[in-house]
């Protein structure tokens, strides 16, 4: 790691108490009229807005109110600080005229996600959901050019860091806690048994994720040039959305085995996509942005009063709050059904936004107190001249929240050689040295309105930011989304090819039987003859007998192991837990086959996202359903394993229920779609070995 102060020779020593040097320029030779601001209690130029605290001074802005009326959001005075606005909260440095563009991008992306979900293209929809907010964030970082001087370091330690640890974290979780069919089963239809609580994914992972997300931005904490609360918040937001997006994307990769349109009920999916695409990124952005902002507020921001946020301004408490937000979101996903989880996620998103908004707001206000009123400058937002401080006296825009743009210096020179006070001293030697005379050329009218604005600046305020413009922004956004969706669709299509193919693909040709071949590794020879296998051909199967209900079955211990057993309830698992086979039931006077079958279906609806009947003609189960060679009811279903980190693996579920007149049983097989055929084959073997209490004993 470089010396955190590299590139800033004037501040090459270790972290020092934050200080802000006021501009070295001389004040204007003719002082404009001043007025006492009710909010900050300071004498400020008599403009429409207080240049120190952004409080409305003009009668229209005050709307007849008197005293302290400032409740406008410091980064966007046109909004209340308590209003729930995603764009101006996550992207506070955004020029006002681009807020609508970003809102349109987010809205368009959300509509795209919903449309894909409604059409059943779940893997593609989830990719769109994973990249929506991160993509908008990247566009924001590029567009406003906030960290033009050190883009690589900032991007690497915020957005890329979040994405990287998100990817690694997701892969680690997949390895540590692979998709387990047995864990999906839950309790039996009669209430027996029950799945263990997913502690790692549900509790540990969200907390660990907070630490990972915030750790990248914290590396930037010692850098003197990133000494604003807004810096910390921006870093946290970038890291948070990138992490959540990467996590959603990696987790969802398992779904690509199922093809473009996997089995699934649309409405639960639409709800889940809203959570993943909008709510969770906002929660993460708010939580991590807020947490990072608190760190900056506490250790880097050039303020005297670090208690402005109260206890929430303490990093430890803020960390607890951030972890709590992520944890509650995780638990809501685990414990609540579709709409309930969405409501909780929405509430958490609102709370996160308000928290982050509050931190940004307080940070900007506190920093304003540190600075003396400087010479007149051209507002980079409205191009009208204003006094050099925190807010534009004419449009109320927070000059602190504006980008640290390369265009400011030169544009300011065009406008009179003045720069926004937000620019660091180290980057302003030339403009600072020229603003005395230039400032003298700028006169403020007695009513506080600018009277002489250079036409070049006035006609192209975006030139100050070096921004892209709405059309370019939206086009770029649309193109990237389209490419992502197209690549996802192609990948899902290609990945699923070869599945559900018939044994004999060409109907015009002769075909042998589907002789299932089994390669017993224990019998593998090289080339030399071996001893003939001895013993009965099929004596290696293990017999299981249920004492309560009297049913029995046989299973191959090289394939299956018992993962849970109680009276009348047995779960066998295979393939490292990826496949499960459940037997459950009761006496016939308590259950009939259809009731048991339906009960298991209802249970699975609670356990798998979008759980519904798999009515694909290529997979339909033909003939009469049998369990232990007794005919009953059966069917094939599908759904997606949903984790706190997002939908993961598509599962196929086959259920068969039957009765012998004494007991009624249902057997259910769960397997990931990618190994569905193998799972069905090995389950068939056990299901056919099932014996009923009423079965005739063959001697």
């Amino acid at each position, binding site marked *: 790691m470089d010396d955190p102060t590299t590139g800033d020779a004037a501040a090459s020593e270790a972290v020092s108490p934050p200080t802000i040097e006021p501009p070295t320029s001389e004040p204007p030779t003719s002082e404009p009229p001043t007025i006492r601001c009710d909010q900050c209690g300071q004498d400020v130029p008599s403009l429409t807005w207080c240049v120190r605290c952004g409080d409305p001074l003009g009668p229209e802005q005050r709307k007849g109110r008197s005293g302290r009326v400032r409740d406008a959001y410091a980064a966007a005075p046109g909004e209340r600080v308590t209003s729930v606005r995603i764009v101006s909260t996550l992207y506070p440095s955004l020029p006002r005229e681009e807020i609508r563009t970003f809102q349109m991008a987010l809205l368009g992306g959300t509509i795209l996600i919903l449309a894909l979900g409604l059409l059943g293209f779940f893997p593609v929809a989830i990719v769109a959901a994973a990249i929506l907010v991160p993509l908008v964030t990247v566009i924001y970082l590029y567009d406003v050019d906030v960290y033009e001087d050190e883009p690589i370091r900032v991007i690497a330690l915020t957005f890329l860091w979040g994405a990287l640890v998100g990817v690694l974290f997701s892969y680690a979780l*997949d390895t540590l806690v692979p998709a387990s069919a047995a864990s999906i089963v839950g309790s039996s239809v009669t209430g027996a048994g029950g799945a263990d609580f997913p502690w790692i994914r549900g509790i540990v992972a969200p907390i660990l994720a907070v630490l990972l997300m915030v750790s990248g931005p914290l590396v930037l904490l010692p850098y003197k040039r990133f000494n604003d609360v807004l810096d910390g918040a921006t870093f946290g937001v970038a890291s948070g959305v990138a992490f959540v997006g990467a996590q959603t994307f990696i987790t969802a*990769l*398992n779904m*690509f*085995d199922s093809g473009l349109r996997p089995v699934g009920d649309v409405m639960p999916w639409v709800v889940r996509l809203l959570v993943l695409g909008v709510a969770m990124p906002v929660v993460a952005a708010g939580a991590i942005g807020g947490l990072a902002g608190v760190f900056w507020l506490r250790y880097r921001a050039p303020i005297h009063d670090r208690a402005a946020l109260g206890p929430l301004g303490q990093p430890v408490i803020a960390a607890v709050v951030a972890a709590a937000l992520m944890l509650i979101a995780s638990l809501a996903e685990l414990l609540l059904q579709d709409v309930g989880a969405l409501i909780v996620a929405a509430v958490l998103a609102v709370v996160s936004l308000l928290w982050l908004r509050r931190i940004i707001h307080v940070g900007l206000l506190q920093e304003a107190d540190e600075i003396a009123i400087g010479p007149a400058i051209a507002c980079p937002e409205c191009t009208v001249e204003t006094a050099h401080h925190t807010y534009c006296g004419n449009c109320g825009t927070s000059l602190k929240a504006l980008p640290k743009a390369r265009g400011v210096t030169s544009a300011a020179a065009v406008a009179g050689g003045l720069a926004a006070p937000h620019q660091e001293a180290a980057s302003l030697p030339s403009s600072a040295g020229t603003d005395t005379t230039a400032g003298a050329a700028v006169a403020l009218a007695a009513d506080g309105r600018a009277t002489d604005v250079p036409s070049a600046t006035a006609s192209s305020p975006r030139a100050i930011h070096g921004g892209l413009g709405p059309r370019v922004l939206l086009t770029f956004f649309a193109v990237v989304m389209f490419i992502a969706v197209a690549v996802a669709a192609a990948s899902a299509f*290609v*990945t699923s*090819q*070869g599945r559900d193919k*018939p*044994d*004999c*693909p*060409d*109907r*015009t*040709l*002769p*075909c*042998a*039987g*589907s*002789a*299932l*071949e*089994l*390669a*017993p*590794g*224990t*019998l593998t*020879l*090289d080339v*030399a003859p071996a*001893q*003939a296998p001895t013993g*009965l*051909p099929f004596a*290696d199967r293990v017999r299981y007998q249920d004492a309560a209900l009297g049913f029995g079955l046989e299973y*191959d211990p090289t*394939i299956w192991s018992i993962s849970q057993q109680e009276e009348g309830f047995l779960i066998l698992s*295979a*393939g*490292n837990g*990826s*496949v499960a086979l459940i037997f459950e039931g009761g006496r016939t006077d308590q259950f009939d086959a259809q009731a048991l079958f339906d009960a298991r279906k209802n249970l699975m609806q609670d356990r798998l996202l979008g759980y519904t009947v798999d009515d694909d*003609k290529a*997979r339909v189960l*033909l*003939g*009469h359903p*049998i369990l232990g060679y007794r005919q009953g009811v059966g069917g094939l279903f599908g759904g997606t394993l949903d984790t706190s980190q997002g939908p993961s693996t598509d599962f196929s579920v086959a259920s068969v229920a039957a009765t012998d007149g004494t007991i009624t049983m249902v057997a259910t097989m769960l397997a990931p779609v*990618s190994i569905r*055929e*193998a799972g069905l084959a*090995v389950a*068939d*073997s056990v299901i*056919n070995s099932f014996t009923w209490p009423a079965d005739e004993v*063959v001697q």
Partner: protein
Amino acid sequence: MNQLRTITRPRGGRLALFVGLSLAATAIAPGPMALAQESDPAAPSSFAPVSLGTADPADRVEVNLLLAERDPAAATAYLTAQRDPASPDYRHFLTAAESGARFGATDEAIARVSVALSAAGLDIVSMPPQRSRLVVGGSVATVGAFLGLAIESYQDPRTGIVYHATTGEATVPAALADVVVGVTGLSRYLPVSAIDPADAPPPPARGLKPADLAKAYGFQSLWDQGIDGTGTTVAILQFGIDTDADLAVFDATFGIEGPLPERIPVSGGLEGAPASFGVEATLDTQVLRAVAPGAQILVYGFPSTTTFGSAMDAIVADGRAQLVSVSYGKCYAPGYVGLDEIIEAQASLEKAAIAGVSLFAASGDWGAFSCHAFDKTDGQVSTFFPACTDNVVSVGGTLLEVREDGTYLRETGWEDYLTTSGTGGGAADVNGPDGPLEPLPDFQKGVPGVDQTGARQCPDVSAAADSDTGYLLFYTDPATGVAEWKMVGGTSASAPFWAGAMALVQQQTQAAGIERLGFLTPLFYQIAQTHPAAFHDVTRGGNLLDSATPGWDRATGLGSPDLAVLSQAILETLGGTAN
């Protein structure tokens, strides 16, 4: 699509993009899962042939012209008489040449066709002794012009082999319409493997060995008497390649000896046969060996484009085997097998029966839904071709259970609901322009359990086939060099099992002075009535649609053999003297 004989040449490359993307997809698949280990990530999405456009007019192709019998009713009448003890033709079997001279196309008809072919620029490659067809060849241009077809080039995406095919319907000159009744032999595809490693579950360390079969099906006593098939000959109609080396390991492991199989390539033989058919071929040979180790096995290797009719003609014409096993087939339904191919096979199998040759055909592994094997969206109730035609022994499958001493305990009709697999069976309800193509055969008339208003119903008999009770075989994968034991099931195993079992019986009957067993299906139905203990009646399980019931049923037919009893019953019925 019809396929024309062609000069095949391999071309490299499969759909590399698909392979690459599939591998990439595999790389992002979930964590390790044992069940997924046998999946084939490189499997192409479809084996559908790829059109390469119009064929080179100068390429050579060969087709079969099916010749009209001189009296189509005569052969059927003779077959009936052959089964009638009161007839002077009772059990009077005809060689292929005798059959040809008696029932085949007339010299005049052949001459007319020959003249027409010569005038068209085509040459006659061969004619089997049954005089049932002419194999004719010529350039793409001349064959296409003669048959009114546009011939194209196609490529098998699995192997890269290029062949000729047509989507058109063949027509012959009007002047030949009374002597040429169809055009077949058009298929130039390589065999399609039904053995998909991705479908295979992980292996249990178990499987049926020769001794297990002998104990369970009652032929240990025959073995003990030295009855192991010695002196008999069993043919396998084969589209895949197995090796003597693997058979040697099998023999040595189980301490059995027998003559090396004789491998007889026909019409180009097995050149170009995909390696994926190796397990199927190995299954046929080693199951047959496991039951009748002393029998001489003849492996007739055909290109998979060969029609069943022409293949059987070749085997019958060779005249060496009375017992033939085939484990291949098609869905017996419109759109899966052509009318000409059905007619050809019926004629061929009728001649085979007249010659006293029994074809043991696998009844299919998809229960009552054979078309499902070829099109997963096709759930129509259907049977397997040629297993559900007349004049074959249709062999179904069971799940076998044995007692602790290895003797027979019970069997269950093989049906696996979750995988839509099970013993093939049902009624061959297929209609041609003149009505049902497979009317109820005489041997099924009056049989309890057989729908007397229906068509030919199958299977006739059955044996262990469920992969849960699969057969052990030794196989070396030519692609990887991995040599290992496998446990394999399917009616592909029960068909050669029955052929081998009948080789034991044939050895007995030969010793009793009965040279030919004759076509066995009617005999089985007869013996089921007179010696019910000769068959293990299977009354459990089903074929996914119909349940196994007492007596004949559409899942297991008459049942599996108690060979000790069945062999004696056959001896008694045929009038021989038991040893």
